[in-house]
């Protein structure tokens, strides 16, 4: 399947990646090559085959509904690139 530069730009936005012009060009070629290879999956007869999302299929793993310790706020925030005492700080989302 042909992958256009517009396709790659759209996917880069969905993936939250900023790609330079050079990267867009290389990525378009490489993705086309890889997707072209992957396309041979279409030839496999999978009529009536259930998809297998996990190697070992387990259902409904529950733990006891008990209050437990969680990571203290200050320890979680300590890893953040930008934070105050209460939460993570990000560029303003509202009111531009």
């Amino acid at each position: 399947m042909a992958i256009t530069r517009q396709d790659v730009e759209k996917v880069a936005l969905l993936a939250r990646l900023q790609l330079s012009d050079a990267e867009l060009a290389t990525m378009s070629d490489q993705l086309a090559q890889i997707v072209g290879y992957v396309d041979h999956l279409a030839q496999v007869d999978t009529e009536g085959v259930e998809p297998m999302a996990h190697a070992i299929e387990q259902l409904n793993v529950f733990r006891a509904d008990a209050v437990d310790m969680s990571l203290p706020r200050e320890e979680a925030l300590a890893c953040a690139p930008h934070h105050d005492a209460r939460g993570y700080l990000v560029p303003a989302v509202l009111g531009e």
Partner: protein
Amino acid sequence: MSILQRTACELLRSLEAGEISSVELTTACLERISATDDRVGAFLRVDEKRALAQAAAVDARRAKKQPVGRLAGLPVAVKDVLCDRGQLTTCASRMLADFRPPYDSTVVAKLKAADAVLLGRTNMDEFAMGGSTENSAFQVTRNPWDLERTPGGSSGGSAASVAAGMVPLSIGTDTGGSIRQPAGLCGIVGMKPTYGRVSRYGLVAFASSLDQIGPMAHTVEDAALLLEAIAGHDPNDSTSLDEPVPAYTATVNQPLTGLRIGIAKEHFAEGLDAEVEQAVRAAVKVYESLGAKVQEVSLPHGKHGVATYYVIAPSEASSNLARYDGAHYGYRTNEQEMLAELAGERKKLQAAGDQRGVNELDTALVRMYRRTRAEGFGPEVKRRIMLGTYSLSAGYYDAYYLKALKVRRLIRQDFDRAFEQVDLIAGPITASPAFKLGEMTDDPLAMYLVDLYTVSANLAGIPGLCLPCGQSECGLPIGLQLQAPILQEESLLRGARMFEQATDWHKQRAPL
């Protein structure tokens, strides 16, 4: 003979008998690292102070006859993808260059509880994506057998550290072959356990339905020792299997009687290097001489393994790596520069009267994400995120992701059928011995195709092990892969040990 020529099990016996101390052993490892690692580049960081302190503490407890853990005093190197509380855990990525996790991964916690000496952190392909360790953002790792060649990947640093005699044991992770392939290329033993056998809690996720942690060592017996210490159910990982852990070390030296070895005819098709084929066929002959019955089996969907894997693994990766957003932890782009860039673009669009362009311009938050990720991730990680996002996007989901999940089941069913007839499947681990550094960096698809023999075990969830079974004419190691049914690690280890006891390949050491 240096004590570093000895196996982990031999060293443990010497430690227990008081013939050597952990400080002596740890010091020998540290000296070997400083003598050789500037050439190999296996370690990203060596924590000399902590290692010697742990070693001294174990020696003191042993001297006082106090109880000690299962690996007491044995140095272990850990791939830089497992959280170690308060210590750098970088995944060989700029994104996590300064990341100090606030908790221990279960495997690191188990190693600490077993009184292993945590020597340092090993290099890897960024976020474990790659097969040559060349995707590390920080350094190149070289194969101790030939410094012009790759150690394989993504656990290349863990493989090279053991192969170079810097450490008797190391921990790797395997999503599509990342323990077994570097073990094969470096002439050591590497094992990917059954999916769920070892807890993934605190393992930085790449592809959650495929990732598994496992041991790397000089011998199968050593791999059994390390697996026993890290395996087991963990309430913190809902995909870990609630099954008892057999005492692998207690049985590993017992040969299997009536062993049935399967050979998949598809493993010997076009593209397999003649020297590799010869070594693997010779290994099968060794099994026959040990009384094993060898028969042909068929894994007809194996040829679709790489395509299936390179849809599923990137899809899961694109979702898992969405967490690197510059807000919660890890790298973040310079905010002033980012805002200035956006303002400049807006001005340009307005001057050109492009109202649509203005409307479609990223918000500051979206641009913060995009720049952070553009600067924090390397090319291979970006490629996989793009590939996965594409496979999961509207219009392509059925054709790629869903289709791949169906083929995945067919691959598993091939194994289920084969294992009705045989106990283990033997075959090559890679089509050829270690390739040269730089040989494939411009051709991602060729690099992906190296995974032909390894990805199926991850897709099916079965355990696989690689052990040395020969050498090429130019002296490069050749690996033999053995695969077993779900949770049959015990027979996998025993079967592999039979070969090891009948041959000397595991005693060969890199000429470094």
